[in-house]
């Protein structure tokens, strides 16, 4: 199960992922049409890309009044039969991550479909902030990093 994993430290907020997404997915060149959004948290000096997490039990699927959101049986991506969308926007409220995105051109709500397995935003990310990797690996990596950090801290304390 490969997903887009974000390395917040590496993101400098350039916004190329948004432009690439808008080009590939909406035929536009503007961040408003992108399915990936960068949250700029100025008070912390952070840029955090936010994109559909492809939840195991997606709340948007429950909230869709047209039953058009489904989990792909093979890849477990959260996908939409968007041609049936009536634009009621219920899934936007259901999503805790604000990752269901209003498409102002077609008046429907869309989400990241991982470009069918080769996400273009990841391909074009210049800083390596976006990584397409297995989520269990990603969790392992996080754990290793956290452990490494603690060992580092502990050894510092020791040498002092």
């Amino acid at each position, binding site marked *: 199960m490969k997903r887009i994993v974000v390395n917040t430290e590496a993101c400098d907020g350039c916004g190329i992922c948004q432009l690439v997404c808008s080009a590939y997915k909406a035929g536009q060149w503007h961040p408003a049409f992108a399915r990936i959004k960068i949250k700029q948290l100025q008070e912390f000096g952070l840029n955090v890309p*936010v994109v559909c997490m492809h939840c195991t039990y997606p709340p948007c699927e429950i909230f869709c009044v*047209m039953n058009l959101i489904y989990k792909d049986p093979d890849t477990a991506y959260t996908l939409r039969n968007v041609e049936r969308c009536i634009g009621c*926007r*219920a899934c936007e*409220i259901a999503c*805790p*991550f604000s990752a269901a995105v209003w498409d102002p051109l077609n008046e429907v709500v869309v989400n990241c479909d991982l470009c069918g397995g080769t996400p273009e935003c990841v391909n074009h990310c210049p800083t390596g902030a976006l990584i397409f990797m297995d989520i269990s690996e990603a969790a392992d990596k996080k754990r290793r990093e956290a452990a490494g950090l603690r060992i580092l801290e502990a050894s510092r304390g020791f040498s002092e």
Partner: protein
Amino acid sequence: MRVLIIGNGAAGNQAAACIRKHSSECEIVMFARESFPEYSACALPDVLAGWIPLDKTFLKTSLDYEQLQIKTCFGQEVNNVDINKQCLEAGDKKYYYDRLIMATGSQPIIPKIDGSQLNGNFVVKTPQDIERIIDHKPTRAVIVGAGNIGVETASALRNRGCIVYLIEMQDRIMPLLYDKKPADIIQTMLEQEDIRVFTGERVTGVAGEQQVERLLTDQQEIECDTVIWAAGVRQNVELARKAGLKIGGLGGIEVNKYMQCSEPGVFACGDCVQSPHVYTGKPSLSLLWSSAKRQADVAAANCMGKLDEYEGNCSVVIEEIMGIPCVAIGLNLHGLAGYETEVIEHESEDLYYRLLAVDDRVAGFQCVGSLEGTGSIFTMIKKGTPLSEARKLLHNKGSISTMAWYMDSSRYIFGEY
């Protein structure tokens, strides 16, 4: 194993699909009074407005049922359920079950007052209702009841070019969702759309020879050719009552958090049940699409022997009026009567919101003008995140870098623009 499902609405179909996910062998039979496939009731006002065609509201075709290996007995009323023998009677036949799921739904109330049987009285519940309204060619319409269905129907008919009146008995529109202030803002928006809204008026009768000609309230007479009743629904619990299932004080079938009824082997979900509220824990009715689907998931899982618990009802209703989104999540002050409630409120030219908190927990949220951050507020209400904890998280760089979406809700939590 054989599961019988009574009802072909959101709950019944979700339950069937969910059972099929758990087991490919389980025999599923669905019963329904109506003979048409599943449709989306939420899309009906859009059809009435002329934004989408009627056939788009149907979510399944008979082929879809076949593909999911669901047997259908549509157009057939279930006459009786015998819980001791685990069997139900439909038509002249008896069907035995291992598990039974009641998803009988609800129906709109047309009060028994003078003239409510005249030609020109309608409800909004099925695609046929919409067809009938369109065939009637309404020009002056009165909508009785300004709940979300009433408001949506009023907007839709206005879009068709009708002269539209909206009558509400309470002192504000959408009284179960919004407090007075936001309700007044939405009312002004409706009035800008040229919908004539009257609150605090009780309808006393409908007058006319063969046709609806006038609607009478305790304060005025309104000339009209169409009356649409959107003043509440009644749970379809007759079958359950006859079968000996416990019916709760609010008129819905009583279920526990596993969606189990008072008798073994029987589950219920959807409009016809009453279940605890996510915040108060008190029994409540939830007549929403999302609640029905979630309850159906729980009922289906438990009936296949997999443990799943229902978190409780939490209403989420979104309306778009003149392109401006209006959201109500959780309880309003009316629903929180008796609790000491803190109100965080903000009003500016293009945004109004209020956040209701009790004992450091977010209990309700109403917003006119934006959808930003409503997702994280909704999650907070569902999870019961303490407000103080949320504020702490929002000040912490480490936590916020992994939960950036939380930032969207910060303006509501701190009460700043």
